């Protein structure tokens, strides 16, 4: 398999749930429609906090975040990343990350389209 042939990228972003609405709006504005989203918990530089239950202390190190995954043609990636950074940023610690992973192929289940056409 020739990985160098990858012409699509998985943009995996972790950010704060409260920004989801704006990030989706930003994507719509630049014509990006396909995306998959779910709720996760994240740990990073941002400090957790102490919760109390019946007086017993529980250290909570995992904070709620959202993952959004977008598979896009390589040439669109920079623009998309820029828009996500702009719309997801609050400027506070814990704003999150974006990771880019190579995608070797894609299929649309409904039509069996393959490759760039599938996304």
């Amino acid at each position, binding site marked *: 398999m020739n990985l160098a042939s990858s012409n699509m990228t998985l943009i995996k972003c972790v950010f704060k749930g*409260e920004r989801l609405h704006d990030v989706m709006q930003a994507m719509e504005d630049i014509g990006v429609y396909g995306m998959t989203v779910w709720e996760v*918990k994240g740990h990073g530089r941002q400090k957790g*906090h*102490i*919760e*109390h*239950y019946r007086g017993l202390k*529980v250290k*909570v190190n*995992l904070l709620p975040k959202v993952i959004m995954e977008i598979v896009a043609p390589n040439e669109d990636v920079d623009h998309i990343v820029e828009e996500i950074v702009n719309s997801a940023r609050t400027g506070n610690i814990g704003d999150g990350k974006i990771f880019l992973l190579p995608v070797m192929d894609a299929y649309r289940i409904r039509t069996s389209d393959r490759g760039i056409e599938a996304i």
Partner: protein
Amino acid sequence: MNAPTGLTEIVTAGNVFFLLWGAVLIFSMHAGFAFLEAGSVRKKNIVNALTKIPTDWAMSTVVYFVIGFPLAYGIAFFGSATGLLEANSYDLAHFFFLLCFAAVIPAIISGGIAERMKFAPQIIGGAVLVATAYPFFEGLVWGRFNVLGADDGWLADAFGAGFHDYAGSVVVHAMGGWLALPAIILLGPRIGRYLNGDSRPIPIHSVPFLALGSWLLMVGWFGFNVASAATLPAISGLVAANSLLAMGGGLLAAMVISRNDSVFIYNGALAGLVAVCAGSDIMHPISSFIVGAVAGVIFVKGFLWANEKLRIDDVLGVWPLHGICGAWGGIAAGIFGLSSLGGLGGVALLSQLTGTAICIAIALAVSTATYGILKLTIGLRLSPQEEMLGSDLTIHSGKAYPEELI
């Protein structure tokens, strides 16, 4: 326990039993307020919703015992327990029963100011109102001040019949709803509710919890209305049937005009119940159905008008529900209570209008003063960071579903 029981003894005991039956039902309505609010806020504010209601209840118990009940009825419970025993301690049972009404005031306000208020002003504000505005107006209508409600009071002299409010459409609900309004306005909308000129509805946590709260309120309401007879011999099946029909009317009307919106369906039933309280002892069941149906429509329209047009972020819609529908109930008693409309008579529309207007005026004035002072002193609102994080973590250091850590 084994002394021979005479007729007086059994009637006295029956009165206490009857009142306590009602009081327990109304107490269970407070669980209803808690779950109605818990279902209607976001996950990060559920613990706060569930905590405010019982805390307000406990504070109300104290201030109504010490100040409110003595103020409204001139009866106090200090001195030795031996002095409290007369007639199976009817007065204490009556205190319990009326406390259940009084504590509705902070429970109503709680639903309007949800998701953004600090804990201290919430508790203090509620306690102040249960000690002042509420028992004062209560005393004017039901209590020792012969002004609005009494047969020989000022309104009865002026318009031929006193202000009639059998189970509190005005004394409890309108009062609570109009007390809430200035608090909600002084507090301002939740972050993100109205953004860049847009109205952005904030999705609620759980319809099942909201439904559970509504059911508890609907069921308990029969204690509210029926036990307002205050003594057993005065019990009235008519009151129960009227409550029933008004609840049905409110539900069905809200269903039709909201096109099956489940939240409106439950709220419509409650709107009907709010409106029927005042005249439930004197209207015909068919009139009650109409009064309830009108209340259902008022609530649906009023909620949208307040939240979308006026941009008052009244989370549970307590002002339209209790404030406006309560006022409608007070007025409706003056219409459908008339014997010409199949009612039992003994009411005057002008008295109803005047009494309701006085209630609203008192409520707006005292609430604005109370929450205004709180705002200027300790402040009403969580910081934006605290509000984003949620009142559960901020105020209670704990979340609704602690196990969901991963």
